[in-house]
């Protein structure tokens, strides 16, 4: 719990509502259990971190929450509705946007086009309307363009809007992927190792950036991260996974001192 929420609870006020709920999520591959009965809640507006050593099952968990993999058992609910059986595009329509561990930008397309594509769910114009440039299509096209430019401006890439995405430096690509996800107007943002490959300064900036967009866009953020200090500084709550199981859950200070967590990370960081 965040201190704020704890204060609220102490004063008898209701806690913030639950955004994402994972319940007994399990994923088996043949004989292996990649994720083993993991349950946790993510509250609205929280920045929630998911950490654990390599191979702990974090990405599999993520994939189950974003429609890329079906759980073998258990469920995932977003704002009360079951999403574990939905396709990725249906999940996006529910307001969950994600980035990928290995950056999956549309490399040959420009930064602007990348972000514009993510406006898809918020526009309706079809083939006929578009081809004939009917008023609705024209308005939507204008709006899509504007919105995309705003987001590019937010990450400082507006000046290079027409540059091909694959030509951007690594750090810019990561931020571009986040901007693209934001174009979806999500209410839950899932970031898969957003700080991978960054140096300390960049990680700091990313931290500030994530907090900034959480506040500005009223998001809930769920992120997987390998770099423990970043997570400690940024997240309101953390879940720790090891060998597919949840071994700790709570505020950063608690988790940091948890013996099971220290054990799991022996030697790492």
């Amino acid at each position, binding site marked *: 719990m965040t201190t704020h929420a704890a204060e609220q609870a102490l004063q008898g006020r209701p806690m913030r509502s639950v955004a994402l709920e994972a319940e007994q999520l399990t994923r088996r591959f043949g004989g292996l259990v990649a994720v083993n009965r993991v349950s946790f809640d993510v509250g609205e507006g929280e920045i929630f971190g998911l950490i654990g050593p390599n191979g702990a099952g974090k990405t599999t968990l993520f994939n189950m929450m974003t*429609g890329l993999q079906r759980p073998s058992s258990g469920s995932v609910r977003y704002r009360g509705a079951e999403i574990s059986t939905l396709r990725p*595009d249906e999940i996006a329509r529910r307001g969950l946007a994600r980035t990928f561990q290995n950056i999956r930008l549309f490399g040959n397309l420009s930064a602007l086009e990348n972000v*514009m594509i*993510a406006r*898809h769910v918020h526009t309706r114009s079809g*083939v006929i309307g*578009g*081809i004939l440039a009917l008023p609705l299509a024209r308005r939507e096209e204008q709006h899509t363009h504007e919105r995309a430019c705003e987001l590019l401006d937010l990450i400082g890439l507006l000046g290079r809007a027409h540059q091909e995405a694959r030509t951007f430096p690594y750090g810019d690509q990561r931020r571009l992927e986040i901007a693209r996800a934001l174009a979806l107007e999500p209410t839950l943002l899932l970031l898969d190792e957003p700080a991978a490959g960054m140096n300390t300064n960049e990680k700091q900036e990313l931290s500030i950036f994530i907090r900034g967009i959480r506040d500005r866009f009223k998001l809930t953020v769920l992120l997987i991260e390998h770099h423990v200090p970043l997570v400690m500084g940024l997240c309101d709550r953390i879940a720790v996974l090891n060998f597919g199981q949840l071994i700790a859950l709570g505020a950063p200070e608690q988790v940091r001192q948890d013996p099971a967590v220290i054990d799991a990370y022996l030697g790492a960081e």
Partner: protein
Amino acid sequence: MAVFFATYGSLIVAMMLAAMLALSLYLPLLAGQLSLASPGFYALGGYVAAIISTRVVPFDSATQAYVWRLGAHEILRFPGPLYPVSLLIVEMLVASVLSAVLAVALGLPALRLRGIYLLLATIAFVEILQVVTQVLDLTGGAIGIFNIPQPFASQLGYAWVVVPLLVLSAFFVYRLERIRVGRAFTAIREDELAAAAMGINLTYHKVLAFTMGAVLAGIVGVISAHSINTWNSRQGTFDAGIAYLAFVLIGGSRTFLGPIVGGIVLYALPEVLRGIAAIPGLPPALAQLLKDGRLIIYGLLLVLGTIFFPQGLIRPNLFRRRKFEATRQVPGQV
């Protein structure tokens, strides 16, 4: 001038039809689907035209008119001897609908497959269709259908229909690439997984692109059937698919102009070679090669094209600068 058009009229029309067939392969390719199904829909369209014009509204030489009869009753009569263009348009509509229905029926299951599996499924589809049309009486069996009437007095007359069609389809694809649906196609082509994560319904869009290509191929089939005058199962073959693939690969697979240029130029290429072969004094072996080597050339182009210009000759970055100027100004930029 008149002589030029008289001699080359049918070639010019055929070149434009080839451009559209290339576009029909380009459309599914926009969404990342490599499909060799176009010859099947082309054949279907041709059969629609052949059947309607020779069986449903056949020519009655006594009255020099095309008569639609049901039983003993005459429903409609169209004066001949040229086949009415209005009926040609009806045929195109029917072919479009049938192609669309078949494309959706075929696409829904098949487009879940990727890459090589999809390609194989489309090849199989064309082969199955070919055998079926060879066997059915409706399609004239192995012999096919003859004496398909002409709507125009000369081959060049077809230009009245073909040129607007080409312009329309070119415009259609040009616009498509710049609108929301087209962007969805491109996203799918670039990275399906990411496209889905961004809210794009993969199946819907893949089937849509595939169906657009099918309808275009069907319409071209209708015109070809009249132009060639006969139609049989040899009109929609695997070979033809290879030719269209060459048009797109060499012409350019990344912009709407690529297939058009590819179709026009590469269709004409064997004819040019045939012309060269007619030059007296050429060794007969070479002349023969030039005359019959159409497929050898297309095949070689496929091999060379994949190695040396996988994106084709007409590439989008040839226009990139112009495209930037044409798009709305990005706020803040001068």
